[in-house]
């Protein structure tokens, strides 16, 4: 136990005493995500405002007098076009819509440009007008926000955690192998399992901090991003239990990610090779996030036995407001058990001269 602590302390010292390293792994991710999401929010906001400010322009042919007032109220009606110039203007995005009323009992023709957002809006408005519909969206803001969060967050979170692990694990294992410092450790009477446990514990803690930094950047920029698309996102939507469940699942997931990347790093001859070998695993992890969007809350209990994928599922469930206690329990247990197996594998790799000294 004492040697495990010594190894953990050394890994921490390596990380926290290296200003450059902790700035790039802890400060930058959060800062970048915060800046990026804020810029994105501003752009979306200005786009939305642009659309909301100006009324859509329309060129209307054969407008019945009885409808004139109603259409004028919604569209900015332009008269200075002919049928031909109006179509050109529509294609160029200068005009948003053309409506042609039939002279006899035919159909009303609506021409729009699907490449232009404003033209699409104008089209929807016109359809509602023509059909005489009154469209009401009954979804309350919170449930919209929950749905958005539950589809987007699991994948983004997994990616952030993964890059947190990538920031430290290859350097600490493949790097030590590459520089020949791991051999120095291996001639000491320290048990290989202690080296594996110590490294994974320390790296997980650091990766978690890095993930936390990214998450913080994301959370802090959420109001800006959410405000731009209609708002409704607030942290009060979720209770203490929800946050605890997410945190537990994240912890167990980081253990797995660090262990997997450590194993790849132990196999690789250099940090560079490790970063290359990790790419397929990163894609798998991303897919876990993507598929969790489709599995939704009706996922069968069997899916909670798949490591990492189960984490994405649980996070998605919790965020959408459908907490599945059995699923959470299975997920955490499965992930911890799987991480233990991986630690065992890493220990065996540390014992293998073919893997540790393959230059």
């Amino acid at each position, binding site marked *: 136990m004492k040697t495990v602590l*010594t190894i953990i302390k050394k890994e921490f010292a390596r990380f926290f005493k290296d200003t450059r390293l902790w700035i790039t792994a802890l400060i930058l991710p959060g800062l970048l995500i915060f800046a990026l999401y804020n810029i994105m929010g501003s752009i979306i906001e200005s786009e939305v405002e642009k659309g909301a400010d100006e009324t859509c322009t329309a060129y209307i042919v054969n407008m019945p007098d009885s409808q004139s007032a109603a259409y004028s109220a919604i569209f900015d009606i332009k008269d200075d076009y002919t049928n031909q110039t109006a179509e050109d203007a529509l294609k160029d995005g200068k005009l948003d819509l053309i409506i042609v009323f039939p002279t006899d009992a035919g159909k009303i023709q609506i021409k729009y440009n699907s490449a232009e957002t404003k033209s699409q809006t104008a089209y929807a408005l016109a359809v509602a007008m023509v059909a005489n519909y009154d469209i009401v969206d009954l979804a309350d803001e919170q449930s919209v926000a929950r749905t958005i969060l539950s589809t987007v967050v699991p994948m983004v979170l997994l990616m952030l955690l993964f890059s947190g692990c990538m920031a430290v694990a290859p350097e600490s294992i493949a790097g030590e192998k590459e520089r020949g410092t791991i051999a120095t450790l291996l*001639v000491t009477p320290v048990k290989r399992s202690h080296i594996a446990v110590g490294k994974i514990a320390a790296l997980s803690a650091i990766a978690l901090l890095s993930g936390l930094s990214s998450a913080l950047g994301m959370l802090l920029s959420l109001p800006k991003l959410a405000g731009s698309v209609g708002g409704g996102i607030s942290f009060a939507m979720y209770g203490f239990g929800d946050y605890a469940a997410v945190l537990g699942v994240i912890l167990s997931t980081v253990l797995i990610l660090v262990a997997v990347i450590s194993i790849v790093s132990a196999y690789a001859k250099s940090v560079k090779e490790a970063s290359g070998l990790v790419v397929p695993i990163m894609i798998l992890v991303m897919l876990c996030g993507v598929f969790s969007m489709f599995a939704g809350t009706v996922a069968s209990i069997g899916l909670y036995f798949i490591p990492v994928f189960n984490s994405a599922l649980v996070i998605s469930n919790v965020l959408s407001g459908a907490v599945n206690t059995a699923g959470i329990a299975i997920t955490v247990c499965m992930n911890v058990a799987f991480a233990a197996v991986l630690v065992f594998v890493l220990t065996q790799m540390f014992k293998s001269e073919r893997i540790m000294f393959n230059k």
Partner: protein
Amino acid sequence: MEAILQVKNLNKTFKLSRKQRKLEGGAAYKRAVDDLSFTAYKGEIFGLLGPNGAGKTTTLRMLATLIKPDSGDAVIDGASIVADPYGVRSKIGFLTSELKLEDFFTPNYLYDFFSKLYNVPEETATARKNKMFSKFGIDKFAEVKVANLSTGMKQKLSLVISLVNDPDFIIFDEPTNGLDVLTAKTVTDYLVEMRGEGKTIILSTHIFSLIEKLCDRVGVIIDGRLVALDTLANLTAEKNLEDKFFDLYKSVKGEMQ
């Protein structure tokens, strides 16, 4: 004389890469160490002499438990390298240029780190550190990162750190390789001093003068096989070590190309 190391029928083969196979004439495996047996006694400096690629380093790495023998065994101070590698590791000090120290840390930090890994009590470790650091002039650089140390200073630090557990059995692979004359002398002087304290040292080298200066007994390895084993006095009774070695080499390999 009390035996401290007994090497019994040690064998090690390496798989060759495709490119190497062509160079070695098609064989898929290379026998690096071939049925090696010898004994080292307490308080002596035992030298393994041989050309490059003879299997010296492989033998020492097996003794240090970094790699496992295919067959055979070696017992160091009662601990078997096969059955009790952890026991062996705590009894020995192993120094080779292959074992690097992390550039990022200072000598002070690394010494404490390895002392803890060897479970050396803190007071003993501190006293030992002060003594060794001042002996090798590391005290002035104790807080300088390894990356900023000179090659000689790095070697000295590696030596000091390989001895944090004050072992009675010390394995040195090419102890003076890459060292300037001053640092080399510091190292060889210290080896003699350790022998004076009753410690056993086994070293490998291809430098005849080093063997003549330091070793009590010598094993000559060619192509993984022990072709001679005797005291330095007996080996050099008729002619000097260099001529004796070339005689042995000719008898094993035929005329040199």
